[in-house]
């Protein structure tokens, strides 16, 4: 479902990723780890096509970075849910409005928006705080709103870029559990993190470790080193 095929991304200051290949199948929980500057955020940006690879191909849910037309990019993003370390909520809208916004911009029917938003907020445990503004919520709750916004379009994969980076330990555990629940319900999760304690706490999860822009370790490769590459 997400497939990096010998992907290189170069910036004027140097290469962020070099010949990176890995595969995240449907419904999987995958960690993308590595130190700061290892290329995790660049890899996520290539998935939601905020950036295009310099070489190689990124395939996401039927779209290919080498063939996608610019007008198709919004369609790709509607199939993804994206969560950031800094939440990226609209400060002047309530939790409910922030989540609804993700549906409104896709042109969803107005009558269906309310129930879907409430369902997403209930899923992240914030049904009772729908009318509160981000500044009235704790960090963990703000991240839950961001996750609800990412979920409301029923994405095939949830991309989370250091989603617990700004949270205390308790909120981190809560958010991580939420991501596991979402994955258990069938949505693939690709989580970029440098928190190895989190990684270790989820046995059997797919782990891709980046070092200096290259794949240093891929647990899927180790488990099945002879598996032929999918076309």
């Amino acid at each position, binding site marked *: 479902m997400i497939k990096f095929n010998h992907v290189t991304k170069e910036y004027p200051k140097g290469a962020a990723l070099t010949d990176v290949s890995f595969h995240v199948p449907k419904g999987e929980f995958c960690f993308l780890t590595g130190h700061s500057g290892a290329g995790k955020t660049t890899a996520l940006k290539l998935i*939601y096509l*905020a950036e295009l690879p310099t070489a190689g191909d990124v395939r996401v849910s039927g779209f290919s970075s080498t063939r996608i037309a610019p*007008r198709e990019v*919004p*369609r*790709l*993003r*509607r199939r993804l849910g*994206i969560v950031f370390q800094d939440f*990226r909520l*609209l400060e*002047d809208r309530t939790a409910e409005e922030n989540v609804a*916004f*993700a549906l*409104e*911009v*896709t*042109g969803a029917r107005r009558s269906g928006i309310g129930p879907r938003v409430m369902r997403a907020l209930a899923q992240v445990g914030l049904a009772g705080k729908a009318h509160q503004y981000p500044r009235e919520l704790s960090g963990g709750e703000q991240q839950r709103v961001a996750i609800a*916004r990412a979920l409301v*379009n029923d994405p095939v994969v949830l991309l989370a870029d250091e989603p617990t980076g700004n949270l205390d330990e308790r909120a981190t555990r809560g958010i991580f559990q939420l991501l596991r629940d979402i994955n258990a319900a069938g949505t693939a999760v690709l989580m970029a993190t440098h928190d190895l304690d989190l990684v270790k706490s989820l046995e059997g999860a797919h782990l891709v470790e980046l070092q200096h822009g290259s794949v240093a370790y891929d647990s899927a490769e180790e488990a099945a080193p002879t598996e032929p590459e999918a076309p």
Partner: protein
Amino acid sequence: MNLVLRETLLAFRRAPLLSALSVTTIGFSLFVFGLFGLVTVNIQRVIGDVAERVEVVAYLRRGTPPEAVTVAVSDIQAFPEVQSVSQVTEAQALARARRELPEFQDIFQDLESNPLPASLDVRLKPEFRDAAHAGLVADRLKGFDFVDDVRFGSDWVAKLDRLRNIAGAVGLVVGAAFALVAIIIIGTTIRMAVLHRSSEITIMRLVGATDGFIRRPFLLEGLVKGLLGGALALALCYGAYEAVNAYLLHADFFTTGQALMGVAVGGLIGLAGSLVSIGRHLRSV
């Protein structure tokens, strides 16, 4: 409520100070442009009033049969430059001279015979009231046998032409400069509004909004700000016009059509400014 309309209203509600500042800036830059427009309108009116007096007069030979003149009048009226032709008999010419030149009353009283010739006073259509066309019509009138002499005040008509050309050139250059300044100021104002909402634009893109969807509220916002700024500029111009009329001189204001066009231009500049600003922003993020 329509989403585009709601987002536009929200933009005004969320940043009322910035919105008011935008509208005021647009209003004042258009006000300067509008003042210049008022000056231009009034200069044109004065020139138009003077040009009204451009007339080609063909003096007729004595003893010309009236039938020949009548036939010629309909020919002259058919000239493309001609608006109207009026026949002035010798007696009418004398009566007019007595009326218009009272200082020569004594001389006119003592006349034994009327020395003034009959004439055809030819008025030109507004667009032909210049030296070149007046000269052309004069030459054609000279071709009639019964025409003795033709006058149209070629010197002052040539001066009027020069005045008109200078006013036109100055109007064009200064007007273009004012318009350019207004466009730059309005463009910058709208760019500020776009930058103010750049994080929102980023989020919209991440959740899959198309560029067209992102653009629409900004375009409507630019249009509304431009129209409000245009209306403010019109109100300011009206205030300036009233003040000039009360304390300085009698001036004309814009016609309703011109006033509406001015407000519409404000809207269009707002729309174009938004289109450029949001387009540039979308390309850069």
